[in-house]
């Protein structure tokens, strides 16, 4: 039950995009089409889960015994960069279909702040291994959900008559404001 509430709160109530404002660049960048939103979302779920498990193990088995906790930031960002590169190479070699679907989004993920945020929160919140797994799956799923909803709205916005100054990103941010309003009303559900 506790794990479920952790999952639910990370997906909906404390949604990483709309309440923590992370991952704004992909939200504005790849939300023009639903297909690219889903591709980016899937790639983010995969990378966040993988790099979270990796950094968690690395932190508690290497950095803590050597009392090198202050190296966390440098280690994590390198692990993320290396992991993204590694996933790209593996996909390229073994699954051309998946690579074609996710390939172009992968390099962008290194600078997606959600990834670094999740790996840091796993440590600062003192999650157990199971909690860490649940949290690092739930957060990117929440990201993917918002990205998908956002892209369906933006596809229709293309046909709307928007004032000149608001064309492009400003109107998208207005949409985000309304969505944030909807999501803040979930507070208190659990």
């Amino acid at each position, binding site marked *: 039950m506790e794990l479920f509430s952790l999952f639910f709160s990370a997906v909906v109530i404390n949604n990483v995009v*709309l*309440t*923590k*404002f*992370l*991952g*704004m*660049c992909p939200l*504005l960048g790849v939300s023009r089409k639903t297909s690219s939103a889903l591709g980016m979302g899937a790639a983010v779920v995969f990378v966040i889960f993988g790099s979270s498990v990796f950094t968690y193990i690395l932190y508690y088995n290497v950095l803590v015994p050597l009392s090198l906790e*202050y*190296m966390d*930031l*440098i280690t994590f*960002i*390198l692990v993320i*960069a290396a992991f993204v590169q590694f996933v790209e190479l593996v996909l390229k070699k073994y699954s051309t279909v998946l690579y074609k679907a996710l390939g172009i989004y992968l390099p962008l993920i*290194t*600078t*997606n*702040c959600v990834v*670094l*945020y999740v790996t*840091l*929160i796993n440590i*600062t919140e003192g999650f157990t291994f199971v909690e860490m797994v649940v949290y690092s799956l739930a957060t990117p799923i929440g990201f993917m959900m918002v990205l998908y909803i956002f892209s369906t709205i933006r596809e229709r916005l293309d046909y709307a008559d928007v*004032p*000149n*100054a*608001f*064309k*492009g*990103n*400003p*109107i998208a*941010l*207005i949409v*985000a*404001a*309304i969505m*944030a*309003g909807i*999501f*803040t009303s979930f507070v208190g559900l659990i």
Partner: protein
Amino acid sequence: MKSILNYGLNLLKENPVFGLYLGICSTLAITINLNNALGMGVSVIAILTVSNIIISLIRNITPDEIRIPVYIVVIATLVKAVELLIKAYAPAIDAALGVFIPLIVVNCIILGRAEAFASKNGVAASALDGLNMGVAYTLSLVAMSLIRQILATGIVNFTNPFTNVEVFSVTLIPSQFTIPIFSGPIGAFLTFALLAAGVSAIRNHQPKLKEAK
């Protein structure tokens, strides 16, 4: 006077935040009050200037294929140093900004300037560019935070982060007329959208002025 005006106009048109949409995650998240905005802004100015200097110094010995990881390590080291300094000397800022200090590593402005400017230019020019971009970023943060703080609480105040002594506090709007929603996510997105629209309106307007002349 005219050069100051030009500088301001350029700052507005080539603004990294409202014009190029770089580093907007932290802009949206921490601009609840002036203190946070200045704390974040000064940290970014310091990191951006020093990272531009270092990257410009090593630009000739960095192999091209692995330049991005090298830049990221340089930036992460500087961010960690700043984080530890803030934790030691300004705990109030550390408590307010929290996880957003380590997240400066993935602030696109810093990597963006390293890649676009410092890796191709000399040390002095890179330092100046870092300072310039950092100031533009800080001014954007201050603009956002002033609007949000005044509308949400009606008060503008500044507290010295090192001693926790309030430097000044001005009440502009009586508390029964404030709009608390502006300190939350809705206000953040709304303020940002309107400021970005304003900047884009000025940009759209500019070429027409030149044609008229």
